[in-house]
């Protein structure tokens, strides 16, 4: 019987907790709010959100959804509370548009700041920060300070390259960019070459690649720029060692620049707080928020003239590739199939 008593107590408790949840979501309708669905870990954007609330009095509600964000907004339909999508990678932004869960925004403030290559031609999404997909090179074992993406397939790197899963969205976009530059056949050959150079089966995240370089598993790896800054400037002494083991080389495509990707925003189709959402979008390209964002996330600001994080600046000047990322997005499916075709992850 003891079990039943504690059970009844638990039931009461649980119902109360649910009631509180329901209550808080209903009470929210009384004040000015903005509801953000994001694939970004909220801690990363919290400083900007807090500043926005302080400035405008608009309360920001967030939900972090890793996969299925677009599906959820579509399923929720007309009653969806979602106003704004914040996500990383062009693939996700393009997917949101393709899914029909976004609406175009016409804003001079946004168009003036964001270069055309980093926003949707129809205004469905806007890039607010850039990250480079670059080469981490062992400080000890790699002497060169320049490299091309193509060179990663050179047999001289045999058994010396590390990378996370080829199917990860960061790599898919990089491979898509390679297809955009060289065509499908050449890109396949390149990918086969990189695979032949791998030191181990693709796995882990970007940080693990730096860790593997420290451990001597490989000499070069592919990773995003901001991770290096997070490792070097974080509180964890072990991660600091991983970051210190590598140099960052900003690679380029032959005859092109460094592959960059965006973090971006999109207004949802049925946004209940549309005005607040647009206000937020415009706030995101203000000097103040671009600075906070660059500082907190170590991404490249999208706005010209904003100071880059010192660690990121130490990698050298970014010469971003010139293919519009909307074009790259279209080639993602092909890239994903290519990864399977060459058995990159096997």
């Amino acid at each position, binding site marked *: 019987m003891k079990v039943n008593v504690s059970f009844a107590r638990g039931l009461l408790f649980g*119902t109360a907790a649910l009631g509180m949840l329901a209550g808080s*979501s209903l009470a929210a309708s009384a004040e000015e709010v903005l509801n953000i669905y994001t694939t970004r870990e*909220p801690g*990363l954007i919290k400083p900007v959100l807090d500043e926005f609330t302080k400035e405008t009095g608009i309360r920001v509600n967030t939900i972090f959804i*890793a996969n299925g964000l677009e599906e959820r907004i579509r399923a929720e339909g007309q009653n969806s509370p979602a106003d704004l999508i914040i996500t990383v990678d062009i693939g996700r932004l393009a997917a949101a548009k393709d899914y029909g869960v976004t609406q175009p925004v016409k804003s001079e403030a946004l168009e003036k700041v964001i270069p055309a290559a980093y926003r949707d031609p129809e205004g469905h999404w806007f890039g607010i920060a850039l990250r480079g997909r670059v080469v981490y090179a062992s400080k000890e074992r790699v002497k060169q300070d320049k490299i091309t993406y193509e060179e990663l397939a050179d047999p001289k790197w045999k058994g010396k390259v590390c990378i996370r899963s080829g199917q990860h969205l960061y790599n898919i976009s990089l491979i898509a960019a390679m297809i955009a530059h060289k065509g499908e056949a050449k890109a396949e050959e390149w990918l086969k070459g990189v695979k032949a150079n791998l030191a181990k089966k693709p*796995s882990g995240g970007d940080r693990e690649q730096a*860790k593997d370089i420290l451990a001597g598993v490989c000499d070069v790896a592919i990773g995003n720029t901001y991770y290096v800054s997070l490792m070097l400037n974080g509180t964890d002494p072990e991660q600091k060692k991983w970051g210190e083991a590598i140099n960052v080389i900003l690679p380029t495509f032959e005859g092109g620049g460094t592959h960059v990707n965006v973090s971006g925003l999109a207004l949802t189709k049925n946004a209940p707080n549309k005005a607040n959402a647009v206000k937020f979008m415009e706030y995101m390209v203000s000097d103040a928020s671009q600075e906070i964002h660059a500082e907190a996330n170590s991404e490249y600001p999208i706005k010209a003239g904003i100071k880059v994080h010192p660690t990121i600046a130490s990698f050298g000047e970014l010469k971003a590739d010139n293919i519009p990322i909307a074009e790259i997005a279209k080639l993602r499916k092909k890239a994903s199939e290519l990864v*399977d075709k060459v058995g990159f992850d096997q």
Partner: protein
Amino acid sequence: MAAIALVVLLPLAALIEIAAEGDAEIWPHLIANVLPASTFDTLALLAGIGLVAGSMGITAAWLVTAHRFPGRSILVWLLPLPLAVPTYITAYIYVEVFDSAGLVQMALRGIMGWKSRGDYWFPEIRSLPGCILVMSAVLYPYIYIAARAMFLTQSASMLEVARTLGASRIKLFRIIALPLARPALAVGVSLALLEALNDIGASEYLGVRTLTVSVYNTWLNRGSLPGAAQIACVMLAFVIGLILIERYGRRDRRYAASPKRHRTVHPVPLFGIRGWIATVLCTVPVLLGFIIPTAFLLRETLRGGLFNQLDAEFLAHFMTTIGLSVVATSTVLILAVVLVSAARLSKNSLTKGSLFIAGLGYALPGTVLALGLMVPLVGIDNLIGTLWRSLTGERIGLLLMGAAGGIVIAYVIRFLSIATGSLSAGLDRVSPSLEDAARTLGASRREMVWAIQIPLMRPALASAALLIFVDCIKELPATLLLRPLNTETLSTLVYTYASRGRFEDGSLAALVIVLVGLLPVIQLVRTAEARPRVAESAGSSASALPAVDKP
């Protein structure tokens, strides 16, 4: 009755509907480049876990039941504990500990003076064998618990006879333990494998391309939800196979458990080196599945000074987690009692079918379940919304999706089969004559369920409740996708840190998940371990299977 089955069928139907939307062009590519490798990886992973977790569970269960050796009395308590540790968390921890730049290898390099990874050999944790080891370490308790219960109830007389006839210890294991364990093995292994199949986080992180991973790639990278749903349907075939194996196992167990009088096993001592070997064999699983993960989390929590995360917000997330789990667990139990009693009373194919369908919820990977649930949930929400608007003129937004109702429904669908399985096993032990007598004496069906079935099912109910509660606390993918704004549970909190590449910062939340999960697991052990003794002193028959009541 059938309505409950319908609720379980909702996400399945949605899945099939999405799959039917087409995208046939994707299949040549999948067949040529994806499915062979991922089917192989999936099969290899399942076979590996079956073998490793199976032998860990069986060996440990047999040793602690039939023998006395150093540490046995503590190990009996420790062996089931990995049940409280989520698989994805274990995967992260194992990488931190055993990876090339992890604690162990770094220490080794420091001691041995090796400079780089090329200077020595060390097994790669991010690999298929690594994944098998990691998953086995936390999934073996499913087999251990089932096998232990089976040995406790079944083996006393057989053991004594065999011992009297001079059988060696190894032979005892071979001729008694293994055949006896077969049904328990089927039940435990199929549960463990369903968990493994479901887990996307661990296998992806460890670089194993299972079918589940292919579902994600097809959906997210090739932008084909229909294609993904089609692969998921293929996976369902695997899953139904596993469920059938489990059913088969349970059928045997009922048969095996039917003899009325058992005595408890008197473990015989193992002396000297043999005793210590037994100690090692039973310690290794505990070490791998519980001590290493918990110690790591504790270390990170202390090292990072994470106790300052314990604030009002953390407490709120904690309460949310507990609240959701309690509500979901109670709902599951109520539904399961209805289902099982109905199936017992009327043996027509509709109720039987409903029971089987209720079991399918466990089969769907969490994210697929959540995806499939969203459309019907919002449908209900819109219905309520429209009704409300026409009555009051007000907008109430999304009630289920907006207020955690969606998560509870997902938990219920997912874990219903644990309860129905446990309860039907419990009821199977009850002689139908008892019910017939009640009916003859004029009890209505309801009175009979209330006065006879539910009291008899109470131990089964309790153990099911504990298991489901632990599973709810650990659940990640459906929670992540279905929760309302500004809502975190402990597991989404851990995932949030991990997705930023800062898994260590989530150590406190992970530790709390484990600690909260420990309480029910310990209660489970207490029930299982205590009953034989109680029964013995009462001089009646003993049954230690947590899911089974004594007649």
